[in-house]
């Protein structure tokens, strides 16, 4: 589960990480007053207005703007709240923006990257730090891998202060900056573990130039990205409350409610499969035979007839779908339940587009018999004998 930048920022602030003053607005009218308030609190005239969407590429799309007066703040807010944001991560249709973060601008001496994630190879959480902040870490990893530090966290202890201190010195921090950075890293580690994150990233973490109040400069978190383990949100009511359904694909959300795992893709062949690996492979074999899958859909192990029917509703709600491939290898999932779900869907929705069904495994004979007996409800049905046969038939059927 993803959260917005302003929510991630709040989690950091609650954990004791200093962030510049800021507030969230939802209307153009609030822009000027919020600008005045956050700049007054920070003792500056510079503020940044940032669209709150989960997709990246905001800066290049014009949805992050620096402003120095209330009029420009209002103008920036009007632009962002009345236009859809289009970036390489949003798709051509773009995203509507509902929330803006208005944060005080800060002078920047140096930028850093800081993140914690779980490293699968070592089965440990790992702190990643780099002196090259403010850019994509993947880019740094490719061009200058030596600039990235990786520090494994003990699974039962978490990040230790001495580890954080070593990282701070290696980042080139000095004097009071070191302990400020250590505090940030320890807080990030605590939030990561306490809240079951899959990634907790501060990018950039900045060092401000020396000032009267902070002769060694100040270490501040400017932007943050947090993702949470979907399997663990049950024990974090506060994180659940941050969920923003408007950021999710509506069909994917609908599928979740029925225990289905659905991801929309660009092709025209709808897929209904049991098991994630087989569902991915079904997409692969469609492509292998020259077709394009319209979705990934795993009905899971314990799906009911209703869930199967709902799966068809979701697949058919995508207008680009010109044919459907059902591929079931029954284990826990019984073929007769799938067959009955298909028949119910046919009775309710009516299949006008080609339907290719391949059943194997538990109760396969009962499943096939059900489909044969319901032939009149399934005029477009073709039975397939194996995976290749199924893929060839559905690819041929959609032309």
């Amino acid at each position: 589960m993803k959260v917005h930048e302003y929510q991630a920022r709040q989690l950091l602030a609650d954990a004791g990480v200093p962030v510049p003053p800021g507030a969230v607005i939802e209307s153009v009218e609030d822009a000027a007053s919020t600008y005045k308030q956050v700049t007054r609190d920070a003792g500056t005239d510079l503020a940044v207005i940032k669209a709150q969407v989960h997709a990246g590429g905001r800066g290049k799309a014009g949805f992050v703007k620096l402003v120095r007066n209330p009029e420009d703040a209002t103008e920036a807010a009007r632009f962002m709240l009345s236009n859809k944001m289009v970036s390489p991560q949003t798709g051509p249709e773009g995203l509507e923006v509902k929330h803006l973060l208005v944060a005080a601008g800060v002078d920047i001496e140096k930028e850093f990257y800081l993140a914690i994630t779980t490293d699968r190879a070592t089965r440990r959480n790992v702190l990643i730090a780099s002196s090259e902040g403010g850019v994509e870490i993947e880019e740094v990893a490719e061009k200058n891998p030596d600039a990235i530090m990786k520090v494994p966290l003990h699974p039962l202890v978490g990040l230790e202060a001495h580890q954080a201190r070593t990282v701070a010195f290696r980042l080139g921090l000095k004097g009071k900056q070191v302990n400020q950075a250590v505090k940030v890293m320890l807080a990030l580690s605590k939030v990561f573990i306490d809240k079951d994150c899959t990634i907790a990233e501060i990018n950039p973490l900045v060092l401000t130039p020396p000032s009267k109040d902070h002769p060694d400069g100040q270490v501040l978190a400017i932007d943050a990205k947090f993702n949470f383990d979907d399997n663990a949100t049950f024990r974090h009511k506060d994180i659940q409350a941050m969920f923003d359904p408007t950021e999710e694909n509506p069909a994917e959300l609908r599928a979740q409610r029925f225990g289905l795992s659905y991801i929309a893709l660009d092709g025209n062949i709808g897929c209904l499969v049991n098991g994630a690996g087989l569902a991915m492979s079904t997409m692969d074999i469609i492509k292998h035979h020259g077709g394009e899958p319209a979705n990934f859909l795993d009905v899971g192990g314990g799906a009911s007839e209703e869930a199967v029917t709902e799966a068809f509703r979701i697949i058919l709600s995508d207008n680009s779908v010109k044919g459907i491939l059902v591929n079931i290898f029954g284990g826990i999932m019984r073929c007769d339940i799938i067959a009955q779900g298909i028949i119910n869907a046919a009775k309710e929705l009516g299949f006008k587009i080609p339907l290719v069904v391949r059943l194997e495994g538990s109760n396969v004979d009962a499943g096939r018999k059900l489909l044969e007996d319901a032939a009149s409800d399934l005029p477009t049905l073709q039975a397939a004998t194996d995976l290749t046969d199924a893929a060839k038939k559905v690819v041929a059927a959609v032309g």
Partner: protein
Amino acid sequence: MAILVDADTKVICQGITGSFGALHTKGCFDYGTNMVGGVTPGKGGQKDANGLPIFDTVEQAVKATGAEATMIFVPPPFAADAIMEAAHAGIRLICCITEGVPVQDMVRARRLLDEINTECAKGAEIVLVGPNCPGVITPGPKTGEGDGKSKYTGAGCKIGIMPGYIHTHVSEAKTGKAVGIVSRSGTLTYEAVWQTSSRGLGQSTCVGIGGDPVRGLNHIETIKLFQEDPATDGILMIGEIGGSDEEEAAAYIKEHVTKPVAAFIAGQTAPPGKRMGHAGAIISGGEGSADDKIKALKAAGVEVAMSPADMGEAMVKAMGM
């Protein structure tokens, strides 16, 4: 011979009174697995539908039945604790079927297991399979006398949710050869079993290692067991996008494996950044794409099936048959 389990392995089910636990305990029992009991805290002293004794704790179950292996069906919030309970009670093979265990729970559980395994005598290490996996099966012949209730001879051992009947014991395989199968996916494993069975191959043991990012056995450890097992003539590895397990396995195979190996990688068409059902099946940060894995496996001399329909064929080809 096979790996991890055989007909003599005594098995319990943790979560035996839950709906999935009860269903699959019966499935394993009917297959002829040597099921000796189950655990549900608070229901100790009762019996399940198959007449198996139920215990409050794994410790009691082990003491009373001599159980060596467990199949875990307890709900995700309690699954990691169930794994640790089994480990502390002296169970040597832990199959955690439960899907949806929080990653941080597994990070801690793995560490505790590793601690136990470093301190124990060599050869007595605990093996964890899963979570989020179909389990482990060493097939037995289908055509024996059986126990009167099933068509199986009771010579095999099925721990998990896979359909038993698609598997073939080497004695009933046309080619007289058996392969070991290791996979991150459930139903795709059934597909692979089906394809190898259809081509006249038996299976020595099939291990579903699961689709989670932090888990027990990985590809390499399982492949090592197959390489050392005299009953395994070839190895079929089924991987998927995400992580770097398959790349590491490729390097291991090149260095250490003399048996024929075939492989398939699911997710060649998966878009980056999207979690494909399994928590672990995601291409992120430029890592874990199917292309990289396939390239690494081919370079290691592995016969890679490009279509999921050709997994059996690739295995046959790798074995030079």
